[in-house]
Structures are given as C-alpha cells and as structure tokens.
C-alpha cells in the first residue's frame, strides 16, 4: 500500500513536505488508522492524534485524498492509491497531521454548550415527551471532530468570527432542547453577519460528517427560528 503523508516538524522544518511510505497491511488491518499505527511502529517520528479508534472520540480527523474524514472509520478497501493524507484544511498545523483546535473549541464554548434553565430543578429530572426528545436526534451525536468546519470555505476565510458548522449544530442542539429556556438569548447571539450568516449553504459540512449528521440542516433551522422570532 502506497501512502503520501504531509510532514512538518516545527523544530527543524520551515516548509512542510510530502513523504512517501510503502507498507503491506496485515489481514487484521481494516481501517486507515490501523495502517497509520503500523507506520508509526516503523517511523516513530510520524505524528497524528488518535484515541478510541472507533469513531467516538473524534481525534483522528484528517484530510484523506482531498476530503476530510476520520482515519478510524475509513475502510482501506475504499481508498484509491496513493493515499494522500494532509492535516485538516485551514487549521494551524502543530506537527504532521496534528492541528491546533483552539479556535474551534473557542467557538464551541461561545454558544454555551450546556442547558440553561433558571427554574429550580425538579426532584428527579426534567422530563421530555418522546417527541421533544426526538428533536435532539441528529444533533447530540456530534463528536466535535472538526471534519465539517475544516471543510467549510466560510470557516477558512473567517475562522475567528464565523462559528462554523460544528458550533452551529451544537448551538441548535440547545435551541431545540425543550428543557432549555435561553432560546431567545441564543438566537440573539447568533444573529450576526459573521457568527451565523457566513454560511452559504454549500453543504460541504454535511458531505463529510463521519457521523452522517447534517450541520447544514441545523443552520437552516436556526435561520428559520430567527425569522420566526423577529416576525
């Protein structure tokens, strides 16, 4: 198997370079991450993030043959060779395939990703009807891997001001929650030419979400909720 991997060591390099690797996968290697871990045992200078290796932690997002995805969910038999691996586009590169997620998580925190409800909590829990709970499906599953935001041109151009598809999906997750009482404040915060309205609905986010979620649908719902609120 032939791979071309983006290499950059901030201590010795001024420019990134592409390094070629040839490796024979073992029969037990099913996903791209398996091959990367095997490569790492040969060349321990190769750096990438990984943790759970099953699409839950969201650590091993990278640009695989021009599209963002999780190495742990990428089947080997679907890959065209050479397999070209680069770090997530538009994110500052720390080393090799590892990028700086600081801004990404700052946007996530800016939308207050927790339930806001000043009423004193009931003795056991805040109940929801099955229909109310149903509205959170397709939203709560997000693992914050940043595949979507790093595939969004609007986020590339204004990474410090546009919240990006991941943050907006999370914002809608709390707007849609029947137990949250801060809907109006959340919408007011989003009504901004940068925070929400940089989105041009090109749907790159939905194209690459490894969990099959649709940030573009969440953004559509936020815009409609804003329309409803102001009329």
């Amino acid at each position, binding site marked *: 198997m032939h791979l071309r991997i983006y290499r950059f060591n901030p201590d010795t390099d001024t420019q990134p370079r592409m390094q070629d690797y040839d490796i024979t996968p073992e029969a037990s290697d099913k996903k791209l991450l398996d091959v990367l871990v095997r490569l790492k045992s040969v060349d321990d200078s190769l750096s990438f993030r990984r943790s759970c290796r099953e699409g839950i932690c969201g650590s091993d997002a990278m640009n695989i043959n021009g599209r963002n995805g999780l190495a742990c969910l990428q089947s080997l038999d679907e890959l065209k060779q050479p397999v070209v691996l680069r770090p997530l586009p538009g994110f500052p590169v720390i080393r090799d395939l590892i990028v700086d997620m600081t801004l990404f998580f700052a946007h996530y925190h800016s939308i207050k990703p927790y339930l806001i409800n000043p009423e004193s909590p009931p003795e056991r829990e805040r109940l929801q009807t099955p229909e109310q709970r149903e509205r959170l499906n397709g939203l709560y599953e997000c693992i914050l891997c940043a595949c979507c935001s790093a595939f969004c041109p609007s986020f590339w*151009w204004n990474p410090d001001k546009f919240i990006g598809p991941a943050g907006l999906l999370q914002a809608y997750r709390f707007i849609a929650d029947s137990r949250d009482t801060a809907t109006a404040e959340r919408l007011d915060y989003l009504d*901004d*030419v*940068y925070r929400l*309205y*940089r989105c*041009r609905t090109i749907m790159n986010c939905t194209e690459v979400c490894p969990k099959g979620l649709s940030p573009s649908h969440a953004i559509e719902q936020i*815009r409609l909720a*804003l329309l409803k609120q102001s009329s």
Partner: protein
Amino acid sequence: MVRLFSGQRAWVAQRFTAVMLLAAVLAGVAWLLLGEPLDYARWRALVTTPVGAVLTVLVFAMLAVHGWVGARDIVLDYVQPRGLRLALLGAILLILAATLIRVVLVLATHGAT
C-alpha cells in the same frame, strides 16, 4: 458600512429581492420570447410609461440591494485587511448608488418628453 444590512436583515433583504427579481426575470423573458419582435417603439413604450418607468427603477433598486448584499459577502470572505475592505465596500456602494441615480434621471428625462 460593513453593518449596512447586517445579519438577518441582510439575509432577508437578499431573499426578498431574489424573489422579486425572479418574477422580473421571468416577465422579461416572456416579454422577449412571446411578444412582437423588439423595436424602438415597443421598447420605449415599455420603459417610459409611468408604470414601466417606476417598475424599471424598482428592478434596478432591487438589483442594487441584492448586489450589495452579495458583493459585501464576497468582500467579507476574501478581503481581510481593514483599509482595503472599507475602500472596496465604499467603491461598490458608490457605483451602485450612481447606477441607480442614473437610471432615475434617464427615465425622468425620457418619461417627461
């Protein structure tokens, strides 16, 4: 200047003018394809009658608003230096306003005669 139509207001203005302009484009195409062959008399009659002139100015006004929102989006995306950004936005606004004023003046002169 960056804030002229911001956030939701810009989005709504863009969508509203889009729907209106869509109707205008469809009417214009139908007028071209279905009507008599286009000549000076027919053209003049269309745009210089009071109703025609007002509609023409309205279409140009919608084009200016729609164009402003779109052009500003492009500048906000691709032009990050603040000075250059303001200069570009100012120039676009100026050209759009001048175009609109010119159309009003042209139709006012020809409508009066």
